[in-house]
């Protein structure tokens, strides 16, 4: 019988020590993935020796590199409360990509509290139970009781927080908040800009009737494409991941069964705000722009230490509706090179809402697109290396 592509599975664990494989615990550590694309590339050296004829010896095969790409559907953790540390499996991949996992298990404050005086449609002043340390809540979901109906509508996001407890928002509210607020319990992943090394992963992957144990798995690429689901076309938001690894062991072993993971919310009936305006558009994609290197080390069997991230330059591309300049002047904002927030949020209810926030980004010059029946524009947003400059959160 031929091997089937669908008979594929992947499990992963955060690896404690470089070079030492940590066996995933099954079935708890199964990560549901799609479009798995393993690639083994040969490393060769051309043999320069003369042979006394025009014929030359073929290159020496001296090694191999193992890389693998796969997609993870952006499915929130669900459940009734914030998961434990490292329990959310896609979060292990995000941590390996230099994101910090933030777990806020209890709302702040525990009971809703009245907002302070001086709030506006773009800034909520928090009350006595809030911190006076600047940027404490940057990138965090904020619940405002008078911001519409239902958890999703009432939840907005903080893009800047000052020492006077002023929480600047990514959206422009219909009216200044005048009732209660809470920083919601949430699980979040935020880009970390300190010098600590991200963790490595150990993976087991089954395909083609074999099991491969991968050690020192390092994320070498992360893209987050989010396409709008329209009346006529649906699309899954996803994390597109590329990793490099060393094959630690392999065995002939059929793929185990992976149970269904539940519904993945699509990007509609939500929010997409850029520079304080709700903008329409077909898609946005965040690319973490990762570069990695393999440190040379002849003490290792393959001559290299595990691959390491050496650089990450994030940017976001958007395909959005074109607006007249008196409504939304993207050309002018590209000229001015000021920082503006981006925020997207969609989903259903507690534990099944997804938020993506870029608190500060600069406009690159947009390109108008008149190729279709509608006028659109494509344009990048430049994301500087501020702390929490890219965030993904799941409020409860």
């Amino acid at each position, binding site marked *: 019988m031929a091997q089937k592509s669908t008979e594929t599975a992947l499990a992963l664990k*955060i*690896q*404690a*020590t*470089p*070079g*030492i*494989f*940590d066996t995933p615990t099954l079935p708890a550590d199964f990560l549901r993935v799609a479009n798995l694309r393993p690639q083994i590339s040969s490393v060769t050296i051309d043999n320069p020796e003369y042979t006394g004829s025009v014929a030359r010896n073929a290159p020496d095969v001296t090694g191999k590199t193992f890389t693998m790409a796969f997609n993870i559907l952006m499915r929130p953790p669900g459940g009734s409360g914030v998961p434990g*540390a*490292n329990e959310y499996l896609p979060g292990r991949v995000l*941590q390996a990509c*230099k994101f*910090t*996992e*933030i*777990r*806020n*298990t*209890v709302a*702040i404050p525990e009971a809703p509290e009245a907002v302070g005086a001086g709030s506006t449609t773009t800034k909520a002043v928090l009350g006595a139970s809030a*911190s*006076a*340390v*600047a*940027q*404490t809540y*940057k990138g965090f979901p904020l619940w405002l009781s008078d911001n519409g109906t239902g958890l999703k509508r009432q939840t907005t996001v903080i893009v800047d927080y*000052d*020492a006077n407890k002023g929480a600047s928002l990514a959206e422009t509210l219909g009216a200044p908040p005048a009732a209660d607020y809470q920083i919601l319990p949430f699980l979040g992943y*935020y880009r*970390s*800009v*300190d010098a*600590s*090394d*991200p*963790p490595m992963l150990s993976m087991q992957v089954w395909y083609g009737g074999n099991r491969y144990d991968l050690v020192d798995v390092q994320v070498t690429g992360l893209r987050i494409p989010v396409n709008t689901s329209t009346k006529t076309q649906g699309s899954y938001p996803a994390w597109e991941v590329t990793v490099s690894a060393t*094959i*630690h*062991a*392999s065995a002939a072993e059929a793929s185990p069964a992976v149970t269904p993971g539940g519904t993945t919310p699509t990007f509609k009936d939500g929010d997409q705000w850029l520079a304080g305006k709700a903008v329409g558009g077909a898609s946005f994609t965040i690319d973490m722009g990762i570069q990695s290197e393999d440190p040379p080390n002849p003490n290792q*069997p393959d001559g290299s230490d595990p691959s390491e991230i050496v650089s990450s330059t994030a940017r976001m591309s958007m395909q959005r509706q074109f607006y007249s300049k008196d409504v939304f002047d993207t050309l002018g904002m590209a000229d001015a090179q000021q920082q503006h927030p981006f925020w997207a949020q969609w989903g259903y209810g507690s534990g099944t809402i997804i938020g993506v926030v870029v608190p500060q980004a600069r406009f690159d010059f947009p390109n108008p697109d008149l190729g279709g029946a509608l006028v659109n524009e494509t344009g990048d947003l430049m994301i500087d290396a501020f*702390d*929490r400059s890219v965030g993904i959160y799941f409020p409860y």
Partner: protein
Amino acid sequence: MPDTVFPPLPSGSVDFGQLHEAAMKGEVTQADVDKATTRPQPREAERVATIPTPDFRYEAKAGGWHEITGPGLNEPFRTQDRAKAAKKWDEVTGEALPEFTALADVPPPSGDDA
């Protein structure tokens, strides 16, 4: 007096409740961040013993792994079963896998001073 600013967060998993307690006291220090962050803890030394030969290399690694590398092996032979490792070592070198438990018991590589 300048505003106190929340420090950048490191790699790992952070319990924000702990950091918020510190923030409510007026300052979040690096020690607070370290205390609230869960990071992977290295288990033990990476390599506990090595036997090199002219062609093949045996390594007893942390976690109970036995690894044999050398010519003719497409990829390193790895197992957590010592009997299997001994059998493989006998196949490729014609020698018995010596018993040792610590680095001090491992013979020095040929060509090195004892």
